[in-house]
């Protein structure tokens, strides 16, 4: 099995590469390192793992056969895609096009890493795959949401028009080791602040909800989706919903911190509620998140403690 992973040096991409190598695959990893880092993949270096610093919005060439093309390249945190709005749109559009073209040439199976952000600030709750979403195309988050919506449309067009064997996974908030401390997302922020004993900053009144999936569960679901015959999008996420205030309290407790909680104004277009309906993944993939949120948080806190001491 030979697999190409775009964005393979990022948080999710690196866990995915690692799991593929564990399954005996040969992995070609492309990343321009705009938000990814070689620290995430240094431990993977072997004769079965090839890393190329490459911008996938440019032409992609890989000699030899490929069985899978997994397109994970994109800035993914609001802080990152607001700093990199045009690269985010380009990698969703041009990068997806290049990756699809490569999969077509190689007759490889293609998997798009899409996102729960395609649902925007959802008007139905929880979100099923047949919900079309509520996205502000010109808002600050539009660059990411619309890039991923376009990427899904392009993927389905290659499936319908070229008969390409495609998969689309809509990834809900996922966490674990190798998240960037400064990526602006709630979990690394809270953990970083709690470990340093600084005030933990919650946006708004903290009543907005999210669901958090531990990265190993997500990677397991992606593997199952790759092996399935499901072309339609599939939600992967943990339906266990919690408020951000609750999350902050848990992180403070699990890290043994005495940090206080402070409240800051809510950012524009921040979704108020988000929870996956995972009926499709349950039925078609036999998938279910297994790692309890507290257990996942413990592992993540330990990892952050480790890099903080470095």
């Amino acid at each position: 099995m030979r697999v190409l992973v775009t964005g393979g040096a990022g948080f999710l991409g690196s866990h995915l590469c690692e799991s593929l190598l564990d399954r005996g695959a040969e992995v070609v990893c492309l990343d321009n390192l705009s938000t990814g880092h070689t620290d995430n993949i240094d431990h993977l270096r072997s004769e079965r793992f090839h890393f190329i610093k490459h911008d996938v919005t440019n032409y992609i060439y890989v000699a030899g056969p490929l069985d899978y093309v997994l397109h994970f390249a994109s800035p993914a945190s609001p802080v990152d895609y607001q700093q990199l709005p045009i690269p985010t749109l380009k990698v969703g559009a041009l990068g997806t096009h290049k990756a699809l073209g490569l999969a077509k040439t190689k007759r490889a199976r293609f998997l798009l890493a899409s996102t729960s952000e395609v649902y925007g600030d959802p008007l139905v709750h929880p979100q099923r795959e047949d919900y079309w979403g509520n996205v502000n195309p010109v808002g600050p988050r539009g660059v990411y949401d619309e890039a991923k919506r376009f990427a899904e449309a392009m993927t389905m067009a290659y499936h319908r028009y070229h008969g390409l064997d495609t998969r689309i996974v809509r990834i809900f908030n996922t966490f674990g080791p190798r998240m960037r401390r400064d990526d602006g997302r709630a979990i690394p922020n809270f953990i970083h602040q709690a470990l340093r004993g600084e005030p933990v900053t919650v946006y708004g009144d903290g009543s907005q909800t999210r669901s958090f999936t531990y990265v190993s569960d997500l990677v397991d679901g992606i593997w199952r989706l790759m092996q399935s015959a499901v072309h339609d999008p599939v939600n992967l996420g943990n339906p266990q919903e919690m408020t951000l205030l609750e999350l902050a309290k848990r992180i403070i407790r699990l890290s043994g911190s005495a940090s206080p909680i402070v409240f800051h104004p809510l950012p524009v277009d921040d979704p108020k509620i988000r929870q996956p309906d995972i009926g499709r993944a349950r039925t078609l993939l036999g998938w279910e998140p297994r790692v309890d949120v507290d257990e996942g948080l413990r592992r993540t806190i330990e990892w952050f403690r480790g890099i903080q001491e470095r």
Partner: protein
Amino acid sequence: MIDEELKAILVCPACKGDLLFEESRIICPACRKAYPIRDGIPVMLVGEATEWSPPAAQRT
């Protein structure tokens, strides 16, 4: 520095041409670019490539 299999995978991202491999850089003779190799990683980014001219002896 770069293993044989990785050499076989790479082409010039600008012109898709064949490459020449040196110890610390990768050269595209067709569009006269040199791509750096940093920590064993081929940096195939057009923006980070430098201009490359063929050695004088090969010029006619």
